[in-house]
């Protein structure tokens, strides 16, 4: 749910502004679109008898959305939840720079989970996460995190890897200095037009440092988890790596319903759709050609992938990273060679620790279906 189509900073690697169409959208979610979305959401929940719905407030920078309107929106969502019995879970992904006491009070009051983007220590973070004057934003982000923690909100953390940096420094900084034990380090968004640097050495070292030094301390990195789980044959838990469908719907600030927003990395108008909450039910997006093509591409892999040893564990990587103007999504990931090296390495490290056990089937299924530990907020160290 795009609350804002603009941002207060100017990260050099951001996919969002690679599509000039975002400048044609209202700067903040329009009141009419918000109203229509809430109505459509309630219809959708009732029609499909949903007991759970996940909304992520996103941008640009979502906290550019006026606080007064944010509160009113939460009240509307609360009302929908009350009337339908559906739990509407809410999260916000932010650079934390605008976080102040008022925001923390609002986020706390409505149980909005918070995810903050931090790339590592100041010299790594400030290389790419800069304001419109080119100044680093690390100090401002840390002020925001401190503000969140002052009211007991423990944010999650997303980093974008810089393959030229040392992953051990990032890990040490996030865990030992920021005190965060569950987070993610993502490969930079890129397509085949970008020719990005390989990420293999970075992730191989990241895995080794994690496995040898941090895993026993309860540190978890989602992308590494996803790779391990894929390697041992479990379902994908991430859209960064692993096989599975992409069926995210993005609500734009003008009410249009688009496919996963990262796909706009493909260029101007690349996610533009014919669906809008003012005219369409949420479910109608499934018939929209752009949404449909992204969904189908996520489930249909190219020949190279189909022949690959790691097909099930990799799933072609992130859909956006498969894009080329010549063959659209019918490619392996732009990081394909890197992923293969990383999978080889992780398998070599974990295979010697694997044991095959025989257990009672009923007990196995009971244990497997017991609730997973609550990982929604990373504990402080």
């Amino acid at each position, binding site marked *: 749910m795009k609350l804002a189509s603009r941002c207060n900073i100017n990260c050099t690697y951001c996919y969002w502004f690679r599509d000039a169409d975002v400048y044609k959208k209202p700067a903040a979610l329009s009141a009419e679109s918000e109203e229509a979305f809430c109505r459509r959401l309630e219809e959708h929940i009732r029609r499909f008898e949903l007991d759970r719905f996940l909304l992520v407030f996103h941008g640009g920078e979502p906290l550019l959305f006026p606080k007064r309107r944010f509160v009113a929106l939460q009240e509307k969502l609360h009302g929908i939840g009350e009337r339908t019995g559906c739990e509407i879970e809410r999260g916000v992904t932010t650079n934390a720079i605008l976080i102040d006491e008022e925001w923390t009070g609002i986020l706390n009051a409505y149980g909005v989970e918070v995810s903050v983007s931090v790339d590592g220590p100041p010299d790594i973070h400030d290389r790419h996460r800069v304001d419109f004057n080119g100044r680093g934003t690390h100090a401002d982000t840390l002020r925001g995190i401190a503000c969140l923690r002052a009211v007991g909100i423990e944010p999650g953390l997303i980093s974008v890897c810089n393959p030229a940096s040392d992953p051990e420094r990032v890990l040490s900084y996030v865990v030992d200095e920021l005190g965060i034990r569950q987070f993610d380090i993502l490969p930079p968004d890129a397509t085949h037009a970008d020719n990005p640097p390989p990420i293999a050495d970075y992730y191989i070292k990241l895995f080794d440092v994690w*496995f040898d030094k941090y895993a026993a301390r*309860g540190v978890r990195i989602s992308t590494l988890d996803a790779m391990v789980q894929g390697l041992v*044959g479990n379902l994908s838990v991430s859209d960064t790596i692993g096989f599975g469908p992409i069926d995210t719907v993005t609500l734009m600030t003008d009410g249009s319903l688009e496919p996963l927003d990262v796909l706009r990395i493909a260029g101007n108008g690349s996610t533009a759709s014919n669906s809008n909450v003012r005219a369409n039910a949420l479910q109608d997006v499934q018939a929209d050609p752009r949404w449909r093509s992204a969904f189908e591409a996520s489930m249909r892999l190219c020949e190279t992938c189909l022949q690959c040893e790691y097909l099930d564990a990799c799933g072609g990587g992130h859909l956006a990273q498969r894009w080329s103007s010549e063959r659209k999504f019918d490619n392996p990931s732009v990081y394909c060679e890197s992923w293969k090296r990383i999978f080889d390495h992780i398998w070599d490290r974990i295979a010697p620790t694997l044991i095959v056990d025989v257990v009672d089937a009923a007990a196995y299924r009971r244990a497997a279906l017991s609730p997973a530990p609550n990982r929604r907020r990373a504990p402080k160290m």
Partner: protein
Amino acid sequence: MSDDRDKKYQGAKAIQEELNKKRLSRRGLLQRLRLMGVGFGAAYLLSGKDAEAVAKSEGEGSDTVASLKSTNPALNEVIDEGRKDSTLGEESAGDDPSSRTRTAYRRVFRRVYRRI
């Protein structure tokens, strides 16, 4: 001990020996495990079959299953958590033709909340 259980123990022992001697590829290991009833993860999505059909072809109904673990406790926790997800995926897939949508929901859910 039932025949089935005995067969599973023998099978698990053989797989473990091959694994220890590095004679088993990852694909080979997963294929052998699937025949013994270990969660089939992404396999059903890739196969295009419905989960019930896959489960039947992979030994559901047996009173024992093979289970993959790690001697490294942290890694074991990751695998165990993934198994819970995979089993939930199978459960929902068996009940509902829209299983892929449910799987995807969980995938995004996990992705976001892992990050949050």
